[in-house]
């Protein structure tokens, strides 16, 4: 048996604690994530390799052969699809890191309530979760791009622009998912529904595999409201110069920024009210 010896109330510098609150949450999440680093790396590498093989050797070869080697927009099919594939990978990464930790924090082991008993505020918890999710997204996109570069699927000059556009897409989608997840009391089947009825259509109907205007007009709206399409358009413009007007560029960027801001603004008050209970 050992006694604790301390002078109560002297250890903590409350100003420092309050300042670094969001980062403390992110650090904690990264600490937890480091436990499955191996599977994150293998998934991060395996996913693009599977897509490359299936699209590059399968669909890509077919499209490129049928367009007389012109591909789409004058680039190979894989280069056309790359911005969308990267955005999807980033979106999936953020989706995982936003939804499950939020459920864990509020419902499963209620760690958010324990965190909120420290100097950490509700808003800092939300920011910390988003920060970690973004780090996971960055990690995923870097791995994905490394594979694309190694296989010569995209030129090096596209790496930075596509990195940015895919992370923007994921931030917008992640913030929206955070606002949704914080409102779920205990029903995880909603994630399956979101997967099937939001993410899958978004992936298929956002001009991922062909230009959106190939779709009948009554289906194009799915692309218009999807962060995926806006990010993919930006990525195509920045990576290989797909023609876009200035107003279109601005619209895509503003759309993504707006979804992100609205998502966070809807998430914060619910984080606060739930932790008050």
């Amino acid at each position, binding site marked *: 048996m050992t006694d604790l010896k301390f*002078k109560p*109330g*002297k250890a903590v510098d409350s100003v420092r604690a309050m300042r670094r*609150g969001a980062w403390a949450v992110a650090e904690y999440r990264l600490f937890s994530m480091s436990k499955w680093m191996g599977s994150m790396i293998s998934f991060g590498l395996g996913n693009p390799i599977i897509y490359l093989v299936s699209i590059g050797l399968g669909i890509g070869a077919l499209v490129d052969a049928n367009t007389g080697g012109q591909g789409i927009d004058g680039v190979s099919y894989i280069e056309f699809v790359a911005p969308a594939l990267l955005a999807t990978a980033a979106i999936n990464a953020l989706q995982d890191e936003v939804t499950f930790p939020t459920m864990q924090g509020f419902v499963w*082991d209620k760690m958010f309530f324990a965190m909120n008993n420290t100097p950490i505020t509700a808003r800092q918890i939300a920011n910390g979760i988003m920060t970690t999710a973004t780090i996971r997204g960055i990690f995923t996109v870097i791995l994905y791009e490394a594979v694309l570069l190694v296989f010569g699927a995209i030129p090096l000059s596209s790496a930075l622009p596509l990195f940015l556009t895919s992370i923007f897409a994921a931030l917008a989608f992640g913030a929206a998912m955070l606002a949704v997840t914080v409102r779920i009391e205990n029903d995880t089947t909603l994630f399956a529904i979101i997967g099937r009825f939001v993410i899958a259509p978004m992936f298929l109907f956002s001009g991922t595999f062909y230009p959106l205007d190939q779709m009948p007009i009554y289906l194009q709206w799915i692309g218009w409201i999807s962060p995926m399409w806006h990010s993919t358009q930006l990525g195509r413009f920045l990576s290989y110069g797909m023609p876009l007007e200035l107003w279109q560029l601005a619209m895509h960027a503003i759309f993504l920024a707006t979804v992100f801001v609205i998502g966070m603004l809807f998430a914060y008050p619910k984080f606060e009210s739930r932790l008050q209970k």
Partner: protein
Amino acid sequence: MTSDMIIAKDLKKVYGDFVAVDGINFTVKQGESFGLLGPNGAGKSTTMKMISSVSKRSSGELTILGKDPDKFGPEIRAHLGVVPQKDMLDRELKTWENLYTYGRFFGLSRKFLKPKVEELLAFAQLEEKRNDKVEELSGGMQRRLAIARGLVNEPEMLLLDEPTTGLDPQARHILWDRLFRLKEQGVTLVITTHYMDEAEQLCDRLIVMDKGKIMAEGSPAELIKKYSSKEVVEVRFGTDKNAQFADQLKKLADRIEVLPDRILVYTSHGEQTLEKISAQGMNPVTSLVRRSSLEDVFLRLTGRTLVD
């Protein structure tokens, strides 16, 4: 120097139409061990959440460590240790990792936390379990870990919400010992409980709560003296027969309480009263003479028992 750690005046918490805490007043001094005793739903946990500076009050005044928690929640929380009713541990992390990561939430450095984690593991008698995941620990161990975690920031005041609910007697006694050591060191303790023995063991002073209000306040001894007799004789005549002896028993006692399964006879001299009961031809199936407890105080104040 003695200062007030908590000052509550007309403190109220309302959820919609439901008044959870209904205008309570109390003060907790530095180094004191203060209890909130009451049955489930009395408003203890709600009061505790307001003291923890996470739940805002609906009205009234509240000062924690000299500050208003509505304005200075994070500053106050930096110096509080909170042991919630549900442990809220990260079940996927190891024992030591739970202490370490929680310490980081207070902005504590790795250098500070390294020896601190070991010290806390020793205090909670969890050294051998340091590398076990939380889900592998017993209920008592998880509770000790939650208490150790609440101490990682060397708090001025430790708040414990139902610290031993659901634990076996041995685990409870280990916990009481740990808490008693903290109290000896001058850590202010605030404890909610619905166990009268726990309140008697740990609290210098307590408030008895029921339906959001304070029914009585004082030290366990004062409350017993004020609201109960020195001793109690518990007699059982059988469920159907208890009531029929009530009138006869009343004449032998200061006061009686007829419960569904037994009659409590309040008296200064238990053994003598029991002898008189037998002498009058009443032969209970079982009988027991004991000292008065806070349970009796609660029964007197509310007409109900603490644990249903």
